[in-house]
């Protein structure tokens, strides 16, 4: 039986002090975003699971509180904002309106049964630029993320990379990059080894992924000093990212506080093709 005072895994009320603190953070983020011309949208706390099926990879599905609604449809409580923004906006956006600058905020709930010490309840606030595929947009978003991190009292270190590079290296190389364990028996492309050793340059990358190399070079010229290109920051799956992918760390705590990147194919999935780049901050 539910303990009389307990709350369901992953949720709890925020009483006066905590609520005030949260509101303070929200206000700082929102003020900065609005001053930069970002408009807020409100996203539903629950949504169908099915429309997101194409994005689903393995574990992700189990990360959300899911239930079957009165119509027999599988519904999930919000666990990731970015695809929801695309699903909500895609049917309505018109060429003429682009680029759009959107931000959003709210709680997400994750059931990370298997992760160690996972905190399941998170407040997220994020922003994205829709319909601008330019390098400048990438740079602007990196700068914005850095400013917001500072506004939140952190010392940002932004690690970025382009997911298309790993895609071009093959599975073995990707696995090596993910685990950081390099086989020096020549079974891996030299580039992978170089990347792991931290000696790879964009010139090395260029032959494998010329577009990514040029783009990263351009971004590097524009990005602030807190932004570090790390070619070995690779995940086992790229998810919906199609170009630059970055994570914002707080140098003081070494914790990751935000993640983002470019997902130029996501909107097409929901009916209207549009380039997009954005990020989400997570406040525990």
């Amino acid at each position: 039986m539910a303990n009389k005072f307990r709350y369901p895994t992953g949720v709890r009320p925020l009483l006066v002090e905590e609520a005030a603190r949260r509101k303070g953070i929200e206000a700082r983020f929102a003020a900065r975003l609005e001053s930069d011309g970002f408009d807020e949208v409100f996203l539903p706390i629950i949504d169908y699971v099915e429309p997101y099926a194409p994005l689903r990879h393995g574990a992700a599905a189990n990360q959300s509180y899911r239930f079957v609604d009165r119509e027999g449809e599988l519904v999930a409580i919000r666990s990731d904002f970015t695809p929801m923004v695309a699903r909500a906006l895609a049917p309505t956006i018109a060429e003429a309106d682009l680029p759009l600058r959107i931000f959003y905020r709210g709680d997400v709930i994750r059931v990370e049964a298997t992760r160690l010490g996972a905190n399941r309840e998170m407040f997220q606030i994020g922003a994205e630029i829709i319909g601008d595929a330019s390098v400048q947009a990438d740079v602007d978003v990196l700068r914005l993320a850095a400013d917001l991190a500072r506004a939140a009292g952190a010392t940002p270190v932004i690690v970025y990379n382009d997911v298309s590079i790993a895609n071009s290296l093959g599975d073995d190389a990707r696995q090596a990059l993910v685990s950081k364990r390099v086989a020096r028996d020549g079974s891996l492309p030299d580039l992978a080894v170089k990347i792991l050793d931290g000696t790879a340059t964009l010139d090395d990358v260029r032959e494998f992924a010329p577009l990514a190399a040029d783009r990263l070079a351009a971004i590097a010229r524009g990005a602030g000093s807190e932004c570090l290109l790390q070619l070995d920051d690779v995940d086992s799956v790229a998810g919906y990212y199609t170009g630059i992918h970055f994570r914002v760390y707080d140098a003081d705590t070494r914790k990751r506080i935000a993640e983002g990147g470019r997902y130029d194919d996501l909107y097409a999935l929901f009916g209207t093709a549009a380039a997009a780049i954005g990020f989400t901050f997570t406040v525990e």
Partner: protein
Amino acid sequence: MRIAIPKGRLLEKSLATFAAAGCDVPDEADLATRKLVFHRGNVEWILVKDCDVPVYVEHGAADVGVAGLDQILEHNCTAYQPVEFDFGRCQMMLIAAPGAPPLTKVATKYPRIARRYLDGRVIRADIVPLGGSVELAAVLNLTSHVIDLVETGETVRVHKLEIQDVVAEISPRLIVGRGIYRTQTKRVRDLIARIEEAKNATVSIQLP
């Protein structure tokens, strides 16, 4: 930087490797004390139970550590594993008494690994988590089978059990937390490179 060293069978070789990699590690005298935390240069060495190393690194309470793949898997540890060591390798085995019945109950210290193994094999069995002397469970018919680490195979022999299958190849890894790797990349890469070099070194701990 805080480095977590497993107190168990991997202790000496782990420290030896770091030493060979040029780290100032705790010496035998230190280890003789009951202390678990040692400051050497800009490194804080902590000695924790083998199974706790991934926990410390995962939570960022340690930056670097040495852990067996068994513990890494069992804890779904997401830290990087840049170096695989040659020492202390062994195998996770499915073990049973000769002529054991079909597998319906298995005792183990590694319930998650066992679950994954069974699911992969489409075997439906209850898992009985134990704290130690796992082979004994098969001897005393607590369970028909056990899943456990096998190094020399001695334990299996003395209990007159036999190995039925290899569940996983286990090796110790150098694990590195994502936070430090990303925020102090150069320093971490340098350490990894030195460990990589020293990896096969058979150097033992030098007394001052």
